[in-house]
């Protein structure tokens, strides 16, 4: 009993004395985007990172059924921090008898990235579609210290 009390006091003291544990907060931002073959222009998703952000987590998922999609991540200095591309073999349109449940032509891509002490400013996730039919899910996690 005495030992348990000692451990509890130690843990409470640790939590109070350590500002990162005691005063950090997490903010999740989720976005879903669907692109059709009519979306020809590049799209930019902007994430505002402040000086207080101690960690930025990015989790980008995409599924492409038609055409191709390239995803690039840039920091506020314009330096590329990651990229990937997914390309379907179907280039123009889906076959009339295409059964979406079979996922025969579906192509998937995912990137997970955690950036510690990210540069403050606008981080950009650039979507570059080419006659694409795609769904994209972007989960971003900001951990800030108050």
């Amino acid at each position, binding site marked *: 009993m005495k030992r348990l009390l000692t451990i509890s006091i130690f843990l409470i003291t640790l939590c109070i004395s350590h500002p990162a544990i005691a005063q950090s907060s997490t903010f999740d931002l989720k976005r879903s985007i669907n692109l059709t073959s009519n979306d020809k222009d590049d799209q930019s998703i902007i994430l505002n990172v402040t000086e207080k952000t101690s960690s930025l987590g990015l989790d980008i998922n995409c*599924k492409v059924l038609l055409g*191709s999609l390239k995803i690039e991540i840039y920091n506020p200095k314009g*330096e590329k921090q*990651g*990229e*990937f*591309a*997914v*390309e*379907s*073999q179907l280039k123009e349109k889906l076959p009339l008898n295409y059964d979406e449940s079979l*996922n025969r*032509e*579906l*192509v*998937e*891509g*995912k*990137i*997970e*990235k*955690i*950036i*510690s*002490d*990210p*540069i403050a400013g606008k981080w950009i996730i650039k979507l570059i579609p080419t006659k694409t039919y795609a769904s994209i899910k972007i989960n971003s996690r900001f951990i800030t210290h108050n």
Partner: protein
Amino acid sequence: MKLANLPFNDRYVNLLATFTLILLFNSNSLFSQNFSNNEPKIEGHIVLDSIWKPKLYLSHISDFSKMYTMSRSMIIAESDVDSSGYFKFNIDYLPKNDNLYRLHISKKGASDASIIIGGKEENHFFIVANKASKIEIFNNNKTFSDVTFKSDVKNKIIDKVDDIVKLIDSTNYSATRVKSEFVTNAFNDQLRKIADTCSYPLVSLYALQKSKYEVDIDNNTDYYQNFIEKWKNEDSEYFKTFKSKVPKRKNAFDSRILIALSILLSFGLGFFINGKIRKRPHKQTLALKTLSVQERKIYALLKAGKSNKEISDDLNIGISTVKSHVSSIYQKLNVKSRKEIINFKD
């Protein structure tokens, strides 16, 4: 002789020999089961969690820019992974030169053509192979992308490069920005050293690719120009793309030759033009060529200072005919008097 009757040393040697034979026999039977012969192949054992489909896909990466592109058209082969984790690709149809390939797995319920970059679920790794390669692969800790290559030197270097890149990434996950920059620079230097000392061109270029050379070219141009010089005979698409990104070295020797050639060419051109001008027929000579045979005879006599009467007598033609010819000669030679004819240059 019974084993018990032998001296201790002999008994020990006999036991060791028997043990070695048993071991050899067992290992041979193991290899005959899976790693059977010396044919070109990519094979190995992988241990995976149940979230993954027991199937491996081999994709051809035709260009370094396609390393993180997923397309079904890039997949060239697939292999089932049996219950022991064994897989095998026959690769005798691959090009004879080294090319870059990607091995990947996909999650149950996900598309076969899926790529996961980063995190614990990274589902791919890269290898260099050709039609004669014999590559054995094992993964560690149930993580697909954390692999070990048995004996294959080229892919051991690829593995070393990938380990350095993982270290860079893990630093970026946890360290402050300044420390992360220092560590990244140090590791990129290490990758450049590997590229510099590696004797396999594509593996060497892979190390450079992973060092993110594009942002370093301006600061370190000499290094990249030397690298190109070292691999000047490499003409694969991988090298063509790389060479196109590095500024060409300005060669002082070449420019001197160019200047000397220009001077020689100028002189040559000068001589040629001068010769042509000299050879060009004189205007007056050209005019003379327009005269008829009879007119030339009369012209010669006019130059000799003969009168119309003398010409008429010499040529046995009438005076009026001589006058008509003289008039025509004046016109053709654009002269107005006999004096001008006498001074006319042939």
